[in-house]
C-alpha cells in the first residue's frame, strides 16, 4: 500500500524542487511494503553509497540488511565500514555509475554469476547522484528500484517520502523494514 494521507508519513515532497520533470513519479511506500517487496524478490540487491562514511547509523542498518541475507554491493568506499563490522560485500570496487550500467545489460549475471537482479534497494547516496541513476534504470530496465534514503526520489519505482525533517522517523522506518524482513 502506498503512502497516502496517513499522518505518520510526510507527503512525498522532492528533495530538489526542480527535479520534477518526470512522466511517472515514484510511489511513496511504507516500510512494511518495502519489506514485502524485498521478500518477494527473486534476486534482491542492496547498494550502499558514500554517505555511510559520514553516518554511522546507516552502517548499522546496512549491517542488519546483510544479516537478513540481502547481498550488498558497496560503492564509494562504503565497503570499509561494512568490512570492519564483519560484512563481506559482494562488490566493492565498482561505482554506482558502473553498477547501474551493468544492471541495464540483459547479459549481466550479477556479481555472483547467478543472474541479474530483479529488485535493487539503494541506501546512503547523495540525492542528486542517485536521482540520475534511478532515472536511467527507470527508462532502460524493468528492475524494481526502491529508494530507502531520507529523500523522496521521484525517478525510483518506490521510495520513502521526504524524511529529512525527521531523522528519528526515518530511522524508525528503516528499523520497521528490517523487522518485517
Amino acid at each position, binding site marked *: 500500500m502506498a503512502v497516502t494521507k496517513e499522518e505518520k508519513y510526510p507527503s512525498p515532497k522532492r528533495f*530538489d524542487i526542480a527535479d520534477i520533470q518526470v512522466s511517472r513519479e515514484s510511489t511513496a511506500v511504507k516500510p512494511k511494503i518495502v519489506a514485502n517487496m524485498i521478500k518477494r524478490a527473486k534476486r534482491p540487491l542492496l547498494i550502499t553509497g558514500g554517505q555511510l*562514511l559520514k553516518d554511522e547509523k546507516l552502517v548499522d542498518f546496512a549491517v542488519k540488511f546483510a544479516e537478513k541475507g540481502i547481498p550488498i554491493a558497496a560503492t564509494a568506499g562504503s565497503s570499509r565500514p561494512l*568490512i570492519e563490522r564483519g560484512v563481506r560485500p559482494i562488490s566493492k570496487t565498482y561505482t554506482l*555509475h558502473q553498477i547501474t*550500467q551493468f544492471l541495464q545489460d540483459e547479459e549481466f549475471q550479477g556479481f555472483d554469476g547467478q543472474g541479474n537482479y530483479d529488485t535493487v534497494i539503494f541506501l546512503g547516496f547523495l540525492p542528486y*547522484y542517485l536521482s540520475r541513476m534511478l532515472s536511467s534504470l527507470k527508462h532502460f530496465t524493468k528492475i524494481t528500484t526502491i529508494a530507502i534514503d531520507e529523500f523522496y526520489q521521484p525517478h525510483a519505482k518506490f521510495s520513502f517520502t521526504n524524511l529529512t525533517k525527521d531523522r528519528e522517523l526515518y530511522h524508525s522506518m528503516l528499523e520497521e523494514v528490517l523487522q518485517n524482513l
Partner: protein
Amino acid sequence: MFELKKGAFVLDELKNVSIRIGRVVEEEEEEWEEAGPTPKPGILELRKWDHTLLERYEPFYAPMQDFCNLCTMGPCDLSMNKKGACGIDLKTQKARLVTIACCVGASAHTAHARHLVDHLIEEYGEDLPIDLGPDVNVEAPVMRTVVGIKPKTLGDLREALSWAEKEIVKVLHSVHIGNEESYIDYESKALHVSMADHVGMEVADIAQIVAYNFPKAEPNTPLVDTGFGIVDRSKPTIVVVGHNVMYARPISDYLEEQGRIDDFEVAGLCCTAHDMTRYNQKAKIFGPIYYQLRVIRAGLADIVVSDEQCIRADLLDACKKAGVPLIATSDAAARGLPDVSDWPVEKIVDALVSGKLPGVFLPVPEKVGQVAPLVAEAVFRKHGGERKYRFFEDDSAFREEIEKCTQCMNCVFTCPHSLRVDQGMAHAQKTGDVSKLAKLEEICIACGKCEQVCPKNIKIINVIMRANYDNLYNKTGKTRVGRGPIQDTEIRKVGQPIVFGQIPGVIAAVGCINYPDEMKSIVEILEEFLKRRYIVVTSGCHAMDIGMIKDEEGRTLYEKYPGNFDAGGLVNVGSCVSNAHISGATIKIANIFAMRPLRGNYAEIADYVLNRVGAVGFSWGPYSHKAASIATGFNRLGVPVVVGPHGTKYRRAYIGKPWKKDRWWVYDIKTRQKVFIEPAPDSLLVAVETKEEAIVQLARLCIRPNDTSAGRQIKLTHYIELHQKYYGDLPDDWHLYVRSEADLPLKQREELLKILEEQYGWKIDWEKKKIVEGPIRHYDAGFNPTIVEEVYEKYTRG
C-alpha cells in the same frame, strides 16, 4: 618563373579581371612530415575510430527529464523509450543534447580564440612568430595531429580556426530535427566537435602566449597571491571576471604606463585571473567563479570588468545592489548595457561614477584600460575606503536575519548540495553559535537559488558568508602562475617511464568547482597522488582552489611540490584554454618518445594514448558545457575522465563492462594476432561519489595494456594499497590485471599468489613461485597493441 605572393593581381591582357591570392602554401611546410590519413577531418573521417571506442565503452544515459521540448511538435513524452513526434527515442535525444552541450563548449573556446587571434593580428601583425621557448619544438601538437598544420606565425592559426569553426557548424547542423537517428552517431559527433574544442583551445592559448609574452613552458613560474583576503583594502580595487584576458590586460598596461600599478589592486575571478597573472604577476587571483557573489557582496570591488563565459547571468543586478559599476566588454555578454565605444573616456567615467549608468558595454580594450582605473579611483574616493556593503551593517542586523528563519526548508530543497541551512539557522537561533552555518561556507557555491525561494527573504548567502567571516576574509594562499605547454625535453625524460608504467600515471585535475564536499577535498585527493609520485597537472578553477588550501605549516601544494612535468610534480598549465597543453602533452609522448607521426594522424595517436599512456582526467566539480566538451575531447584521444557526482547531470557517460570478455581485445603487431586483454582502462567517463572513490578509481584507470611488468607492478601496488586503505580490502578486479608473477606487488606476492590459487583456481608452481595457468594473457616484452586496423596493417606490412 612567376612567384605567387599574397595580395591582389591585375592581369594586363585580361581587362577587368583581378585575382586575389589568399594563403600561399610554402614548399617547406608541405615537407615537414608526410601527411597522415585524416588531415582536417570531417564528421566521417574518424567515425570508425569512434565506433570502435563506443563498442567497448558503451554510452550510458541518465536522463534529467522524461520529455523533449526542443521543437513545436511536442512537448513529447519520451519516457520508457517512447518516441517523440519527430520519431526520436530517449537515448538518441540524450545523445543529441550532449552533442549540443559539446557544441556550446567548443564554440566558447573557439569563438574566444577567433576573437583573440583577429584582435592580435590587428595589433601585432600576422607574421608574429609562434615561439613557445627553446624547449618547445612541437609547438602545436593538437593542431599538427588534427588539422595537419604546423603553425609558424599568428596568421597561420587562422587555418586551424577555420577548420574548427566549420566542423562546429556541421555538427550543430546535425542536431536539427530530422537528422541523426543513431545515438552512437550522435556520440561520434560529440567526440568530433570536442576534438575541435581542443584545437580551439590550443589556438587561443598559443596566440595569447606569443602575443602577450606569457610564460613559455617554464616549470618554475612565480607564485601569486590567491584567496579572499589578498587585496589591500586601502587601495582602489579593480575586479576582472571571465575568460578572455584581452580586455583586462590593458588595465594593467595603463597602470604600468602611469607608474601607478602599486596604487591599485587588480584581482580576478575565474580564468581571466589566471591569465592576468600570466601577463603581470602583480595581478592577484580572488578565486573561481563561485566567488563572484562573495566578492561583490563583500564590497571588495570598486569596479567590476566582465568579459565572457562562466559569469553570473545576473552580474549587473548583483553589482547594482552593491553599488559597484560594471563594464561589460565582450560581444558574447553585452548584458543589455548601452554601447559607449564612441564616447570619450571622461564621459564614460562620469556616467559610471555618478551612477547615471549602472554599467556600460565597452568592447574597446584600450578604453577599458583607461576607464576602469579612473572609475575605481573615483568610486574609492567617494566611499573613502568604507565600502558600502559587507554582508550586514552590523552584528545585530546579522542576528535579526537569522531570527527570521522558520526552518521551512525551502532553501534545502532548492540547494544543489541540499545544504542544511535550516539546521544551521536553528542552532544559531537557540545557542547564538553560528559555527554550523560557517561550516556550510566551504561547500556553498553561492549560487543564490536559496534566496529566491526563501519566504522570509533572508539573505542566506550573506548569512553563510558572514558566519565564516574571519576565515573567509583571512583566506590567502599561493597559486603557481600558469606555465603553458610542457617542454619537449620534459616529455623526452618522462615519456618512457609513463609508457612503460614506472611513473604510475598522470592525473589531470581540471574544470569547475561544484565539489560535493569541502574545497579541501580536491587537495586531499591530489596530495595522495603527489606523494606517490604520479604527475599531477591542473588548470582553471581546480588550480585556483588548490592554491587556497594550506597544510598545518601554512603551505599550499604549490609550495610543497615542484612545477615540472615529472614524477611528484604539480603542474599548473593555466586557464581553461590551456587544457590543450594537457592533451598536447599526451600527444607529444606518442611523437617525441615513440616517434609516431602526428600530421593528420589522429586515430593512430589516440590509439597509442589509449593503450599506453596512463593519463586520467579528473573533474571533481564539473558543471559547465566547456567542461563537458573538454572531457569528451580527452575521451576521443583515449584518455579516461573521472568526474564528481554532479557530473552525472551531463546525462551521459562511457562505461565499459569488464565482464564482457569479448569486448577487451587488441591486435598485437608483434605476434600478428588478435589478443584478448585485461579491461584497462574499463571506462572513459565515469562519475564517483566520494573523495575516497575518486582516489581509487583514478589509480585504477591509470592501468594500460602496454604496461611492462615493472610498470604494472608499480601501478598495481598503488591501486591495491589505495583500495585497501580506502575500501578496506583487496580490489574485486585486481587479478584481471595480473599477467605474470612479476606484475604482483613485491611485498604481497606470496599472499596474492595463494589467493589466485585458492579463490580463482589459477595454477601456481610453488617451487619457482611462478604462475603457470590462469591469466587472461601472458606478458610479452614486445607486445605492441592497437585497436585500429589501419595501424595494424601499417606496421605489419612487409
